């Protein structure tokens, strides 16, 4: 029936799209309100559930390093750092730092990530040399995002209000007190804590991030 309907046929009346449209625009006369409601609820749960499931699925480290671009470069570097291995055994994985926790910001970031799919298809960073060439640009993007949001993702765990400066090492304590007073944000000092910095990273931060957004 459907493959006949797909091709408009004068003998059989209107085409498939037209018939679906007509069906949707008219009140359901032969189905009970209860059944309609039940179908609505089931379909709703299925839709919302699968939406949330895919949001969570794409928010795992396993998914992030499914691409060798991530696994061979940034992930490999991250495994050498404190956010991967440390005394207390608390680990921050890719999405903890790179995907916002709040729903609206999270969805915005997920939509932005479609650009990453496009570049994956283009193969923009599919070799270590290409990645290295782009690294400063990519890092600057992340720095800028963190600067604009006052390092929101860092602060999911590291909050000035819950920091005891007295317990910190003298140098850290002094620097954090000053930073707090000056209204600085985490990324202003802590660049390259989980991934290697490219050449001229420090100059680039001053020029393209501090100078623009301070």
């Amino acid at each position, binding site marked *: 029936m459907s493959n006949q309907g797909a091709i408009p046929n004068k003998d059989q009346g209107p085409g498939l799209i037209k018939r679906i449209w007509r069906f949707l625009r008219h009140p359901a006369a032969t189905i009970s309100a209860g059944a309609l409601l039940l179908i609505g609820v089931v379909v709703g749960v299925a839709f919302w559930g699968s939406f949330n499931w895919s949001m969570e699925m794409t928010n795992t480290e396993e998914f992030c390093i499914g691409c060798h671009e991530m696994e061979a470069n940034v992930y490999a570097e991250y495994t050498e750092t404190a956010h991967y291995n440390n005394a207390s055994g608390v680990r921050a994985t890719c999405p903890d730092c790179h995907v916002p926790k709040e729903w609206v910001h999270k969805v915005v970031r997920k939509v932005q990530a479609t650009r990453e799919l496009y570049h994956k298809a283009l193969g923009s960073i599919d070799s270590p040399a290409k990645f290295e060439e782009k690294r400063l640009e990519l890092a600057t993007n992340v720095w800028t995002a963190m600067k604009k949001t006052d390092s929101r993702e860092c602060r999911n765990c590291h909050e000035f209000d819950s920091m005891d400066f007295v317990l910190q090492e003298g140098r850290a304590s002094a620097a954090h007190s000053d930073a707090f007073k000056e209204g600085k944000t985490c990324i202003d000092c802590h660049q390259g804590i989980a991934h290697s910095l490219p*050449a001229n990273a*420090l100059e680039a931060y001053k020029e393209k991030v501090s100078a623009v957004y301070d």
Partner: protein
Amino acid sequence: MKTGVPWKAITIMAVLNLTGFAALNAHAEGVKSLRGVQVDEPVFVEPIARPQNTRVNREFRQQPPLVPHKTEAYQVDLKVNQCLTCHDWANAGEKKAPTLSMTHYADREGRQLDQVAGTRWFCTQCHVPQVEAEPLVENEFTPSSKR
């Protein structure tokens, strides 16, 4: 087991009650702070001493100064030298860190540069942090410093 009026307990409770009243009276006269200052005044405390974080004297005149902090998290490679974020002459004031010796800004021909000389790039070749650890081999070094 003895039963009857627990006089001991009653006495203790009475004494505690009385002292409680006394404490209340003291309260009425004004709060006596154990901190020694008003609650809205900041109290400055000594930083917690950590042995590795104090500057170490040199043991011979040409000794590269030791690093009084951890260095493993700082990237020092062909691309970046994170020591310079604090210790380069351009940043040291703001970061309240000691500046590199000016000898480190002269290249091998003696020309003065604004950036650290390439020959001095890898700080940890000479400057190292110290930990309180048993030496692996016996150390027979006698310092030339006279303290």
